[in-house]
Each structure stands twice: as C-alpha cells, then as structure tokens.
C-alpha cells in the first residue's frame, strides 16, 4: 500500500480519474487526520484550540485570496476589508435584528461578494499593479464607511457586541464549541476551493492568469471571469468575517486593517500561490509562528524587564517581515513547492530520478 500510485497503474473509470483521494492509504490518512483534528479539543489546551480556530478562519480568507490572486492572477490587497463587510453584516443582523447565526452567515457571504464585485469593476480597464491599488482603495474606504456613515448600526469605532451562535437552544460560547462550528465550515470551504479550481471555471482563471490576451482570443470571457474571481474571493472573505465576528463576539474596525490584508497575502506567498495545499501550509505556518513569537517575546521580556514594551512591540513585525522577504527572495513558489519536491523524491526513492 503506497501513498501515491505506482508507475503503470491507470484510471479505468471517470470516477477514478476525478477522485481527489486516489489510493486506499490516502483515504486512511484522511480519516485518521480528521479524527485527530476533531479530537483536538480533548487533548489540547484552550489556548491552542483557540489558535486552531484562528487558523481555520484565516485559512478561509487565504483560500479566497488564493483563488483570486494565485489562480486568476488579480492582486488583491484588501482581503481584510471584505472580511470586515462579512463580519459587520453578520454582526449587525444577529445583534440588531435578532437573526440566527445560520441565516446571517450566507447573507454575510453574499454581501461581501457584492461589495467585492464593486471593487472588482476597475478590472475591466486595469490590471496588475493598478488593480492592486483599487483593492487598496477598498481597504481604506470600507472601514471608513463602517465607522462613519453607518455608525448607528455598527457602533463606529466602539466595538459591536455580537451574540454567540446557537445550535438549537444551546448558545455556543466556549472555545471548544466554536471549534466544532469553525472547523467543519473550514473543511467544507477547502473542499469547495479544491473543486472550483479543478472545474472549467478554474481552468479559465488559470488561463487568464497566464496570459489574459491569449485567454480572450480563445473565447474566455475575461471580464466576466475576473468578476467571478472577485466574487468568489469576497464570498470566502465574508464567511471568514462572519465566523470571526461570532468567534471574537466583539468586532471592531481595528481587526480588519491594511496590515491584516498584508498578513493574508503573506500567508498565500509563504504557502505558495496557486495551490490549495499551499494555502493550508502558509496559514498554519505563519499563525503558529506568530503564536510562538508571542510566547518567545513574553519570555524574553521577563528576562529583560526594562525592555518589555520594546521587545513585545517589535518582535512580531520583524520576524514576520523577514520571513515574507526571505520566502519571496529564496522560495517564491512557497512551501507547497517544497512539499511537491519532497513527495516526488519520496516516490522515486531510492533512485535519484
């Protein structure tokens, strides 16, 4: 029983050809992995379960960004702003209008998608760097609108208190409870993302990324697909934002700043653009690194007491900035590429090629 199929084994049916999990061992690993993941809350401390929640939410946002930037080639620097749209839609619907979380979640996703479409409109005329600037504009305009004209609904710069989600009559308030809401949604969204990029739509995205003029000549509706990519990306952001709102239970525009957008873009880069597995690697890697840096900073500041505020303020940005730069310079294809190399060499062992 091997992880990947040995040479010379061919697919005999369409179902086999389309399968994501191709060998029995992969299925076993999937089931064991899922079991391990869902028993986490029993043997991990609350702090780490909370980290897993954060990873799950970030992963959804990064997946959306990866579809837009990694697959469709449209750079977005405003993912956090679209998350804010989702978070506030969900938060306002549940807190002010008394909707249930399960009804607010799809509305948040749709609302974020619509706003994403609006900011995707410039992609009709501009691309590359100019489009990145349009999404940058979204990053500054959306929070300003949330804070000022909509202050009555959103509470402006004061936090909006969001009620916990309910399953039946049971309000989910614990970290472990949220884990069982966030993780299944994250897994579903990962599964959707993996399948979107395998369909015709995904192929069209890749064609546009590689050469949009050639794609248009081949009969791909470039503008339509670009807008679709923006929509999908923002829907992912909306879901992530909605989960964020009910996980934090108090949302503030400060949770969705330009720096957060850069974080999501960084996770995509570190993991590897144009790879769903890469999004997972990058998100887990950077979030765990961030947590470890915080722990390390706290320990360091108990040793150098006088420098505590200096250390805690600077360590995170320095480590994060360095990691992103090192990845861009030395491994621009990200962890996913390394993983592919590792898999190939494992498969061919003991031969060199």
């Amino acid at each position, binding site marked *: 029983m091997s992880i990947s199929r040995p040479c010379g084994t061919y697919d005999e049916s369409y179902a086999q050809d389309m399968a994501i999990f191709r060998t029995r061992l992969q299925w076993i690993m999937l089931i064991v992995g899922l079991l391990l993941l869902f028993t986490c809350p029993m043997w991990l401390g609350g702090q780490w379960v909370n980290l897993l929640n954060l990873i799950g939410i970030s992963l959804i946002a990064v997946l959306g960004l990866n579809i837009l930037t990694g697959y469709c080639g449209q*750079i977005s620097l405003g993912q956090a702003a679209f998350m804010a749209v989702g978070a506030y839609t969900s938060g306002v619907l549940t807190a002010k209008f008394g909707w249930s979380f399960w009804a607010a979640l799809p509305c948040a996703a749709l609302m974020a998608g619509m706003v994403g479409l609006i900011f995707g409109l410039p992609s009709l005329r501009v691309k590359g760097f100019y489009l990145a*600037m349009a999404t940058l*504009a979204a990053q500054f305009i959306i929070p300003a609108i949330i804070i000022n004209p909509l202050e009555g609904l959103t509470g402006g710069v004061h936090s909006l208190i969001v009620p916990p989600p309910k399953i039946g009559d049971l309000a989910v308030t614990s970290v472990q409870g949220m884990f069982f809401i966030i993780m299944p949604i994250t897994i579903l969204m990962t599964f959707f993302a993996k399948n979107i990029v395998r369909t015709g739509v995904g192929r069209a995205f890749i064609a546009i990324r590689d*050469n949009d003029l050639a794609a248009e000549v081949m009969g791909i509706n470039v503008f339509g697909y670009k807008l679709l990519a923006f929509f999908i990306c923002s829907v992912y952001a909306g879901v992530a934002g909605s989960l964020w709102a009910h996980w934090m239970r108090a949302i503030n525009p400060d949770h969705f700043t330009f720096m957060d957008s850069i974080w999501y873009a960084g996770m995509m880069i570190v993991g590897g653009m144009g790879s769903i597995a890469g999004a997972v690697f990058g998100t887990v890697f950077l979030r765990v690194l961030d947590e470890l840096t915080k722990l390390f900073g706290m320990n360091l500041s108990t040793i150098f007491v006088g420098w505590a505020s200096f250390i805690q*303020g*600077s360590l995170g*940005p*320095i480590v994060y*900035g360095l990691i992103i730069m090192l990845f*861009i310079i030395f491994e621009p294809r990200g962890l996913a590429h390394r993983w592919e190399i590792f898999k190939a060499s494992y498969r061919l062992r003991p031969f060199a090629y």
Partner: protein
Amino acid sequence: MQVVLQYIANGLMIGGIYALIALGIVLVYKSTSVFNFAIGQMMMLGAFFLWTCAEVFGLPIWISLIIAMAGGVIVGMLIERLTLRPLIGQPLLSAVLATLALSYFLNGVTIGVWGAYQQRLPNFLPGALTIGGVVFSNDLLWSFVIAMALFVILYIFYQRTKTGLLMRATAESHQVAQARGIKVRTIFSWSWALCGLVATVGGMLLALRLGVSQFISLVGLQAFPAVLFGGLESIPGAVVGGLTVGILQTVTGGLIAPWLMEVTPYVILLLVLIFRPEGLFGEKRIERI
C-alpha cells in the same frame, strides 16, 4: 469665503508633502518599475534619525539634518541591495509584497530601537506668514517651498546631467540600457538612494507637524493616490497629483465631513483607475502579444 481660502491654502501646503512623497515613489518606479510601499517607513526612519542626532546626542540642528539625510541615503541603498536586487525579473506581486513586508519589518525595527513613544522636535524653521487673512503656518509653508525646490532640482538633474540621462535611459528599457553599457544596477542603487533622501526630507518636515512617531508612516499611505493621479512615471505628475489630492482632501474634509479627509484620496484613486488608469501625465501602454 475666507474659510474656503484657508482650506485651500492648507491643502496646498499638505499637498506639498504629498508631492514630496510621490516624488520619492516616482523616482524609484521610473527606473526600477518597483512601487515603493515602504516609503512611509523610510520617512519615519529619517525623522527618528534627526531626533536621535538633535535630541539624544545634542548635535547642532544643521549637522543633524545632514547626518539624517546621509542615513536616509544609506537606508535606501541598503534596501535596494538586500531586498529588491534579488527580485529583478520576478513577477509583479513579488516586488509589491517585498516592499510591503519591508514596511512591516521597518515598523518593527523602529519600535524595537526607539519604542512606541511620541517625541518632539525643536521647531527650527522661522515664522508664519499671513496673506490677506489666510495663515500659512511655518512648517507647512516650508514643506511646500522645499518640495517645490526639490522638484525643480530633480527635474534639472534628470534633464541636464549625465546620471539623469542614464536613469532616463534605464527607465525606458532595462535590457537596451544594459546592452548600451549602462550599469543598470548602479542606476537602481542611485534611484533608491535618491528616494531615501527625498523620503528623509519629507519625514523631517512631517515630524515638525506630527511629532516623531509611528504616525508619520501612515501619511505615506495617503500619498499613494497622488502618485497614481499624476501618473506613475511622471515627475511633474507627482507634484500636480500631490497638490490636487492635498487640496481636495482638506476641502472635502473641512467643508463636508471630517472623516472624508482619509477617504477622499482613495475615492479619487478609484475614479482615476476607472476613467483614466494611466493618470494625468502617465504613459498609455499598448499591449502586444
């Protein structure tokens, strides 16, 4: 009417600083086609250099100014050598994210070295000016004058000196310039050094108004729309864009609602991208397969 004139005057002055920042960005973009998102942080570093020399070491202000500017030039060259040079030939997103990561990194370094405190600089510029009841406060007036002076100097530098000519040639095409025997890497280094210089001057002027703190770097974000408004490759465009954005920002912020101050530049940016993506003076690009 008086109020409107005052807003326009203030806007013009703030626009001077935006023009300066935009100038720094355009200088780098012209020759290396990299958009420098880290310019706000470079300004902040310049301001902290000046503060350290003048207040911590107690040097005379003119010597501190020169040391700070030299520091800015060195930072610019270091950034080019260490982060951007390995990225030559990489896709667009790499360079964009590299400068963004750099800005994050520099933020961390500044907090680590100087702490997250606000410091004050001694006001070393002479007095305010009043024309027809409109007050021009001294720091803003000086930023405007210095921005305009730098603009003229850089324009002459680009048009009249040999190095300027080489830089323009490099901006036209890296490969052709290289083939003609121009040391493209040296030109890149030069451009970043100039950017560091301009950013330091902008940072020092802003420090007079905002104090020496992390806030300076946020002003850089407000100047990005000015660059696109004027056109990414145009030095006159940077100045016109900076002034226009400055005026529109203060007028809308003052007359309609204060919160529009921060948003107006980005609304302008969106409109420019939709209706005239190449900016006022930018070059229209025709794509061929």
